[in-house]
């Protein structure tokens, strides 16, 4: 059952992919409730995206308290976790995203040097 759901979301995601522009970023932020950490993470993410991606992005916030089964697909353990679904490869960034430097490295927006 659960597996199917995941598959279907995956499919719809791929369909979305075709529809969206190629260089658009799809980001997912997993949280569990409106905890301070979650709020900090969201604020930080918003800020970085605004600065770096010029509106070419979409952020999907998933609250696992509401939809716990959604965490399985992306193997979410730590919260909050930011997943870069697009562009591939998938990257995961855990924590409240307060270390901007590392977030940029994690998102491949900044060369490591």
């Amino acid at each position, binding site marked *: 059952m659960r597996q199917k759901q995941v598959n279907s979301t995956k499919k719809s995601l791929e369909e979305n992919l075709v529809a969206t522009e190629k260089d658009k970023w799809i980001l997912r932020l*997993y949280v*569990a409730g409106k905890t301070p*950490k979650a709020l*900090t*993470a969201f604020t930080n993410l918003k800020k970085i995206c605004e600065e770096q991606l010029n509106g070419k992005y979409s952020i999907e916030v998933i609250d*696992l*308290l509401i939809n*716990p*089964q959604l*965490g*399985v697909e992306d*193997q*979410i*353990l*730590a*919260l*909050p*976790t930011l997943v870069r679904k697009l562009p591939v*490869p*998938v*990257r*995961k*960034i*855990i*924590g*409240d*995203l*307060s*270390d901007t430097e*590392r*977030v940029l*490295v*994690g998102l491949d927006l900044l060369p490591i040097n």
Partner: protein
Amino acid sequence: MKKAEHKNFNINLPKSPTGIQGFDEITAGGLPKGRPTLVCGGAGCGKTLFGIEFLVRGATQFNEPGVFMSFEETNEELTINVASLGFDLEDLIKNKKIALDHVHLERSEIEETGEYDLEGLFIRLGYAIDSIGAKRVVLDTIESLFAGLPNQLILRAELRRLFRWLKDKGVTAVITGERGDESLTRQGLEEYVSDCVIVLDHRVNNQTSTRRLRVVKYRGSIHGTNEYPFLIDEEGFSVLPVTSLGLKHNVSDERILSGIVALDEMLEGKGYYRGSTILVSGTSGVGKTSIAAHFAEAACKRGERVLFFCFEESPNQLMRNMLSIGIKLETWVKKGLLQFQATRPTFYGLEMHLATTHKMVNDFKPDIVIMDPINTFVAVDKEFEVKTMLIRMVDFLKANQITALFTSLTFNHSALENTDVGISSLIDTWLLLRDIELNGERNRGMYILKSRGMANSNQIREFILTSHGVELREVYIGAGGVLTGSARIAQEALENAEVLTHKLDIERKKREIERKRKALEIQIATLHANFEAEEFEANKMIETEKALIKRIEQDKIEMAVSRNAGKENNKTKNLKK
């Protein structure tokens, strides 16, 4: 009494039975209910299997659904791996008895940026638990998180919270952990899971491996503290609480025949005691296996079940060889009364042997167990370990009233009465076979070294293997020592000849005596005749004398009458009156 005790502490500490053979006995009921238990050990020691069996048995036998959260194997791998043990995970998953969840962490994909917690894991586990109403949880191997998440401080704090959370959830959890160098687990998980700690071990000794299990710690409950051997076979895990056996077993007065008439005669004519332990020891080729085969055949004829462990011959070879002395074992195998179990002692470790014996005995339920021979185990392990293993074996068999016959090979250079495994004190009836070399022949002798509880014969018998089985003959014991074989036959002939001459001598003596008696009788007769003649003569003379005296008196009276009649005459007349 024992049951009452069990009940008592069940009230104190509720337990969750694992259904794993033997394990619930050691822990007096299973794992602590609603608490986490740490199962640790090195690679390949069976941690995962312990966990999965705990869940499967819980789901199938105790109606407690379970969640298996794997950090290493994927769901598919796990399903296939445990299918070989007869667990149908797919079916259980379909029936919502078990939920598998594979947690995958890829270090390279993860970037750490500030504060975080493992709430995701909690939610995920909680979701899995709630989806099937799980009562049991296995986390295998949670230490993998340490490889995936760099911040140990957070991780440790979160693990502590996780175990607390599991307790609050009221699920019985098994957490597996890889064994560390100095601590029980690599990451010191024992710090967090302190209610029950079980260590699994996989030891290799002389190229054979043995699995062992030990309950290091069990808060609030008594438990066996020894290292218990366990095995993993096609039916899963089984632990042997064998060291807990004691000397409390019942004894039987029943006697069972050995299958060899003369041997029974040596044992008060009744044979062995049921449930006793019999050792047949001797040098090679003296017929130990033949005695065992006789015993097996006799038991099968009585309709008893026999389990025959052979460690040196294949069953077919053994049956063929026994045919040559007229024992047809194949018939009984076909009838299902006799079962052979042939393994090389070196095939696996002692504990494994013990474990398989246990299993075989429990499955086949024999009346008689034969092990041929036991001392080959010495090649596998040290004498002491073999001895402890045999003690456990003997205790186990005795507790089940199973008669055991062991054979043991002794070597010429060692003392005959010294078994290699030093188990003489365990043995109730000990038959010693020895070869007697004399006059260029090698013959077999047998005697009963000891037999507890019976007035056994103290004789040495000659042991002969004939086409119709084992025969025991009286050996010749005399001035020339113990004679066997053709020497005995020669001696017997010699004795026969001697007897014959003796007989002749006696005849001769008898005749001589007869002759002497006759001569004596003749002499006696002559003397008699002489005597009679003399007596007759003497009598005659006496009579003549008497007549003469009478005449003289008569003459006197007549003379008196003629001289003086009257007075004298009257006087005499008065006198006469």
